[in-house]
């Protein structure tokens, strides 16, 4: 066989040369790294090429909204057929570019409020969806087959050399920047202000191609603020069961909380209920979660010792800055967040707990609803068994003993869903068949969009009790354990009473009285803070809630 020693191609630096050409076109127009905001669209026409892969930064909170609008105004004759690779489809211009043909293909994680319109555009053939990802998956593909040629990012401030300060909402910026800048991609940053010297350098200037001062600060949404005033007695009951039946039993110290009212109830009874049980220092010590205001009492009372955040939360900036023993703070005194590292920390924690809309008899859960294309976000990575984990911890080993009763001893991550048996409008949470199946057909997806798979799930907590799926030996037992906590839903009413009693004797079903939870104590009186104002009081005035959450 004749093996050639010659390279298969003669040109090994085409991406870099292409970058140089783009930069030269941009500089010819802008004259320097800092461009005046009215020229933003013209700059994009100069540096973006048809068919480019492009990322418009935007996640739950921070959005490169000015750049997104500027992109929507480019001439489709010059810029078209883009392949959008970004985590969140949240703003109208994100989809406007598909309507006008500027963009064609889409790989994303989450669509939220634009889910309905996205679904319509997919049906109309305007959007070709590659795949819907979790955050970690999409970022991972940035470093494989989906590296952006151009990324539009958002930062708090920049200096004239392009050094960027992201402020507390660093979020996804490092992942996007790393992939783009080191594979000859163009980075355009919108900043709230140009300064002589940035408070700290979150992105070095020589990675950044162009900087524009946006006319208005980038959009940030306070999506992690839960008003304790809306927490119900039922949620307090479920929180008590979680603390006794799971946190105390396994000794859970490292964990991730979802962002609903259910988990907020847990946070708010740590200083009262868990304190009385003597659990301070024994549970909930390290968290991977955004700085949710409802965490303040648990921090102040010495429960939570350290928190790493995926992003920040409006109004929490000063409080976080003043608690540098707890949060990750830069030398400048403001927080640095990072979604990738927070997701990783949560993935390798002892426990994930969150809420969902539907659970089937295998324990598969989904937040998909009819007519919307919403996606996954971060929950599947937080809420899955970490099979690559090797280090031990009491909670992980204890759960492992239950999960692997024969053969090779192993650990097990706890993955918990905390749900009321009925949702708003008396829609049952427990169903024989997830709506996700229909959604798969509607949107021609390869699989039903399941948020947390049943075999990743270990516990379901409802107002009726706890199902411990680790102690179920067959799918039939698992189904009965789920029916056994499904209350008065159709699924719950079809339980086999004998099987349920058998499972209860084994500890695979636990009712409040089995774990020493006194239902009569389950009231809002247990909440360490009952209102947003109480959270301000706990923070000693450091938490400054946005106006929409005030009632004073």
């Amino acid at each position, binding site marked *: 066989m004749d093996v050639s020693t010659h390279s298969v191609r003669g040109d090994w630096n085409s991406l870099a040369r292409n970058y140089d050409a783009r930069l030269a076109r941009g500089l010819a127009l802008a004259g320097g790294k800092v461009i005046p905001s009215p020229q933003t669209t013209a700059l994009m026409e100069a540096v973006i090429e048809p068919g480019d892969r492009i990322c418009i930064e935007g996640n739950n909170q921070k959005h490169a909204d000015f750049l997104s609008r500027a992109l929507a105004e480019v001439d489709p004759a010059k810029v078209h057929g883009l392949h959008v690779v970004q985590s969140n489809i949240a703003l109208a211009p994100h989809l406007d570019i598909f309507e006008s043909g500027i963009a064609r293909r889409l790989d994303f994680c989450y669509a939220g409020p634009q889910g309905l319109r996205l679904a319509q555009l997919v049906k109309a053939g305007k959007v070709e969806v590659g795949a819907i990802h979790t955050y970690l998956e999409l970022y991972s593909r940035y470093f494989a087959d989906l590296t952006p040629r151009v990324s539009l990012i958002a930062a708090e401030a920049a200096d004239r050399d392009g050094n960027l300060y992201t402020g507390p909402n660093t979020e996804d910026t490092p992942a996007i920047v790393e992939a783009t800048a080191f594979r000859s991609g163009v980075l355009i940053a919108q900043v709230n202000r140009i300064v002589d010297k940035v408070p700290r350098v979150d992105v070095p200037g020589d990675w950044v191609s162009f900087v524009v001062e946006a006319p208005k600060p980038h959009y940030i949404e306070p999506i992690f603020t839960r008003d304790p005033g809306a927490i119900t007695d039922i949620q307090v009951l479920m929180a008590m069961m979680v603390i006794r039946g799971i946190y105390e039993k396994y000794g859970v110290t490292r964990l991730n909380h979802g962002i609903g009212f259910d988990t907020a109830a847990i946070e708010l009874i740590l200083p009262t209920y868990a304190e009385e049980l003597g659990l301070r220092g024994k549970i909930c010590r390290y968290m991977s979660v955004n700085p949710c205001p409802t965490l303040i009492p648990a921090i102040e009372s010495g429960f939570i010792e350290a928190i790493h955040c995926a992003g920040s939360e409006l109004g929490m900036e000063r409080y976080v800055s003043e608690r540098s023993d707890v949060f990750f703070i830069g030398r400048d005194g403001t927080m640095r967040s990072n979604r990738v590292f927070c997701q990783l920390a949560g993935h390798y924690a002892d426990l994930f707990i969150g809420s969902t809309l539907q659970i089937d008899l295998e324990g598969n859960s989904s937040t998909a609803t009819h007519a919307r294309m919403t996606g996954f976000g971060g929950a599947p990575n937080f809420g899955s068994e970490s099979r690559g984990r090797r280090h031990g911890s009491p909670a992980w080993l204890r759960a492992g003993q239950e999960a692997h009763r024969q053969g090779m001893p192993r650990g097990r991550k706890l993955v918990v869903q905390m749900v009321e048996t009925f949702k708003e409008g008396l829609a049952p949470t427990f169903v024989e068949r997830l709506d996700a199946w229909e959604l798969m057909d509607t949107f021609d997806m390869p699989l039903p969009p399941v948020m947390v798979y049943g075999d990743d799930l270990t516990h379901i907590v409802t107002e009726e009790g706890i199902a411990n799926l680790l102690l179920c030996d067959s799918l039939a037992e698992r189904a009965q354990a789920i029916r056994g906590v499904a209350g008065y839903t159709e699924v719950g009413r079809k339980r086999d009473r004998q099987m349920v009693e058998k499972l209860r004797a084994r500890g695979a079903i636990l009712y409040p009285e089995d774990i020493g939870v006194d239902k009569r104590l389950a009231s809002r*009186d247990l909440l360490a803070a009952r209102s947003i104002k109480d959270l301000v009081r706990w923070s000693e005035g450091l938490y400054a809630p946005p*106006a929409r959450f*005030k*009632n004073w």
Partner: protein
Amino acid sequence: MIPARHSFLEATARARVRGLLDAGSFREFCGPAQRRTSPHLPALGMPVAFDDGIVVGEGTIEGRPVLIAAQEGAFMGGAVGEVHGAKLTGLLERALDTRPDAVVLLLDSGGVRLHEANAGLIAMGEIQRAVFDARAAGIEVIAVIGGRNGCYGGTSIVARSCDRIIASEEGRLSVSGPEVIEAVEGIEEFDAQDRALVWRTMGAKHRRLTGEIDEIVADDIDAFRSAVAAVLGAPRPFDLDALEAEHARLAGRVARFKGAKDAREIWAALGVNDPDRVSDIEADEFNRLVAVLEGDRP
């Protein structure tokens, strides 16, 4: 650590009554067992409440006899319908016979129940007349505001007809509600979603500073109880001189503040050094501020 307390804001009407009265002293009139429900709501296909959203009865506060009413804000926003209004009017009329130390009205209402139209409006007039009859007979009527619905519409007029008003800072007092103002005058005039604006315009602290509310207490049932107990049996003058003095005060207030664009301008004009902080300070600090301001007044 925030000390344990029993929130008035969160409590039901019945819990508020229990908390304000001496333990075991409450005797309810026309209670839910009698099922005096609205005759109008079923015609509209709407659910009724067995007490029509108001609890009325008698009891004692620190041993002193009172009549008490509490609107249930969770039923139709505490709105006043025919039965609801008749129960309140009847309670006030009873005061003329039993002569309690006070009639205490725990108001938590958006005003007239629009579904009952004229019946609700007539009820408002009857309630107000009954308040005046009681006061004319020398019986004190105390309004208490600290529920989620605030005190709006006709109920706000009833409140201002009473001897005095005790409120928590979560309480609101205004004739027109935020959404109504926004709908009529436009979002540029009043953004009903801006809760900080709503509270500094209609909230109890502002009403205290402008002289419409008499006392601010923390959101705590015991704090309300103490404040009510402290003023029992101390009716305000209810005669022509008092009315003319109030008219003169209100006319002076309009003249003094009519150019103000925001409540904070009024607070500054009243002598508050740091108007931006007023919304955030606690009830006790606020009351010290008010004491200083009033002491300074000529």
